[in-house]
């Protein structure tokens, strides 16, 4: 058997896991690993900050459905990963993060660049490991990938004592894992399936509430079949936009705080709510005791801890969405459109998403989204930062496929978008990847423009420039009498900034110029930045004030 050093073992193990791409940033504690990378055929993308690196791995994972891999050195390298790990944990994104650690003999001595990253990352990873013996290395990597991608996916961190990456041993990659404490459930309980089918068949106003779990599970076909067969209207969370095509008559698009009126109204009227890989987040439910108050709830989720966590559930089914839907489908009766479907049609006609446009040269943010939709014909991956622009991107663009909308939902991480767009493009080289960014958020990881330029990643960055931290400003306007405390934020000259990085950049502030500028940006061969000036005080509507019930929507 060949003897390899720790760095080489990591590379060989990654190959066994079919990893093609890694994102990283070198340093002393991972220098052996980088030495092993030097001659390997793994493609390594050098970011400009470890936060950028981990978000890129996350964007890659979301767009490709594979496990994202990133590398950082000890101490500050590891601590710079923290936000990215928490972000991936909240949105159930499979990642394996390697961090360097000081040599095992120095651990605990406050050695140079020592930080207890397994301790720090404990509550924000699905699991983590510290490897201090080379004999444990290959097995640990095998377990890390298995844990990251199975069950409810999530980030797994492997902290590597520096001496482990130097030491030499025989390389043997285990065929199987032995994790007696970890056994995710995939198949639904037969009795529960039957109960659910009965409830659905007897319902007069059933509603599917579909979340990120359906995307993770790859259940778009089964979902489609279910809707076609039983004519059940579908609303999705922010995490599942596109899992069911939004141009269909029974598509209600997003529900929740900034969801459509018709989706939220449907939740008030439904008598059976079928939650499919969705976790009853407070941005979705608003006031809990008013949420779907008329309905019995069926919840399909792979994580038993999600069942009954926020809301009482009449028929829980623990299992994988795709598997459970397949089991459920034969028991579901075919139905024709009736009163409920007619009601859905009315709701959609009576309460459409809308915004005011005075016909002037002002560029409304909603209009930009519609134009992008028109230009790409819905055939693009939209990545976002966090704020108002994120909500407009969710609302005013029709998503038709899953994984077409990539956003930081659970943690709401400003600074996620730019690196995630880079990762998303690398994960889907043929897709058009468009980043919708706020002028505030993009400044949080703007250094990653360097990464986009170096590797010529052709992302299109559209900055919704309102010169405010708009989402917070909107709350201050509505709930704090326009006391705009620290939300006015001067933006740099984005065009000069882009050009400093060697990126095609342009600014527009007239509606009549938007079309051609957009076209230019989209058709540009490499990365492009379009800085679009929008009204400073535009608000996102409809809106459910935090803590209110969905019936108390304002605006729109």
């Amino acid at each position, binding site marked *: 058997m060949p003897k390899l050093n720790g760095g080489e073992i990591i590379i060989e193990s990654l190959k066994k896991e079919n990893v093609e791409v890694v994102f990283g940033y070198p340093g002393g504690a991972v220098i052996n690993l980088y030495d092993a990378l030097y001659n390997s055929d793994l493609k390594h993308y050098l970011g400009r900050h470890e936060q950028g690196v981990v978000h890129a791995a996350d964007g890659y994972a979301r767009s490709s459905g594979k496990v994202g891999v990133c590398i950082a050195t000890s101490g500050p390298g590891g601590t710079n990963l923290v936000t990215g790990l928490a972000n991936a944990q909240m949105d159930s994104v499979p990642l394996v993060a390697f961090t360097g650690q000081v040599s095992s003999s120095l651990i605990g001595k406050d050695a140079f660049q020592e930080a207890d990253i397994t301790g720090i990352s*404990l*509550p924000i990873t699905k699991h983590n490991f*510290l490897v201090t013996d080379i004999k444990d290395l290959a097995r640990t990597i095998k377990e890390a990938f298995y844990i990251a991608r199975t069950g409810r996916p999530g980030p797994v961190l492997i902290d590597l004592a520096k001496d482990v990456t130097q030491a030499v041993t025989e390389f043997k990659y285990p065929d199987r894992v032995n994790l007696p*404490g970890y056994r995710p459930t995939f198949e639904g309980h037969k009795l529960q399936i039957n109960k659910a089918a009965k409830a659905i068949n007897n319902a007069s106003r059933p509603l599917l509430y579909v979340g990120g779990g359906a995307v993770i599970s790859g259940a778009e076909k089964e979902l489609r079949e279910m809707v076609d067969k039983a004519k059940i209207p579908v609303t999705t969370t922010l995490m599942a936009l596109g899992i069911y095509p939004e141009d269909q008559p029974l598509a209600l698009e997003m529900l929740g705080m900034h969801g459509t009126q018709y989706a939220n109204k449907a939740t008030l009227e439904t008598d059976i709510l079928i939650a499919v890989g969705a976790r009853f987040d407070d941005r979705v439910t608003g006031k809990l005791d008013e949420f779907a108050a008329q309905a019995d709830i069926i919840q399909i989720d792979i994580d*038993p*801890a999600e*069942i*009954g966590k926020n809301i009482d559930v009449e028929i829980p089914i623990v299992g994988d969405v795709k598997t459970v839907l397949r089991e459920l489908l034969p028991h579901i009766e075919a139905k024709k459109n009736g009163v409920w479907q007619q009601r859905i049609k009315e709701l959609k006609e009576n309460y459409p998403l809308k915004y005011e446009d005075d016909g002037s040269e002002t560029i409304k943010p909603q209009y930009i989204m519609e134009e992008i939709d028109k230009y790409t014909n819905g055939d693009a991956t939209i990545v976002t930062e966090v704020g108002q622009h994120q909500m407009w991107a969710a609302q005013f663009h029709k998503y038709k496929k899953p994984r077409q909308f990539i956003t930081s939902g659970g943690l709401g991480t400003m600074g996620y978008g730019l690196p995630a767009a880079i990762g998303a493009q690398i994960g889907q080289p043929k897709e058009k990847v468009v980043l919708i960014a706020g002028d505030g958020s993009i400044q949080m990881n703007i250094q990653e423009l360097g990464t986009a330029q170096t590797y010529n990643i052709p992302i299109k960055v559209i900055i919704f420039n309102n010169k405010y931290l708009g989402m917070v400003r909107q709350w201050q306007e509505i709930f704090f009498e326009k006391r705009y405390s620290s939300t006015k934020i001067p933006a740099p000259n984005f065009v000069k900034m882009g050009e400093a990085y060697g990126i095609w950049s342009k600014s527009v502030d007239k509606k009549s110029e938007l079309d051609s500028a957009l076209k230019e940006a989209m058709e540009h061969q490499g990365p492009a930045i379009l800085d679009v000036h929008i009204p400073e005080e535009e608000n996102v509507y409809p809106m459910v004030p935090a803590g209110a019930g969905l019936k108390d929507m304002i605006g729109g």
Partner: protein
Amino acid sequence: MTHILSVSVLNKPGVLTRIAGLFSRRNFNIESLNVGKTENPEISRMTIVVQGDEKVLEQVTKQLHKLINVLKITELDKNSIVERDLILIRVKCTRKQRSEIIQIADTFRAQIVDVAPDSLMIEATGTEDKLEALTELLRDFGIAEFVRTGIVALSRGQAAK
């Protein structure tokens, strides 16, 4: 409501931190937590006493199950277990009070484990109720300090596996 959970865990580094961290992060109320070796050197048993209603208990159990190194969780039924807690109490005591305190200790099958000119140290084991009754009686003399281990428990009659 208090619940006693018996949790088998793989003896991996950090397993205690993971469990303690989970309780604080999820805002669960932990009354006591005990870890000890078991018949299998790779497995430790934790006895955790938690406060909360059935819903809280359900979340505690499910969240604990998500930890990769947690093997098995059993809620112990208070009626069919042997539960023990150990206490060390240092009671203030004058020469005159000594025999009275020793009598109290005897009644509770407790032992005097240290004698000093102005205090006695008592060791007692038993259920929580018993130890609380003992502490209550000794309070009149003045308790200088005490420490309790918290509950360890096993089901009667059958192995919890």
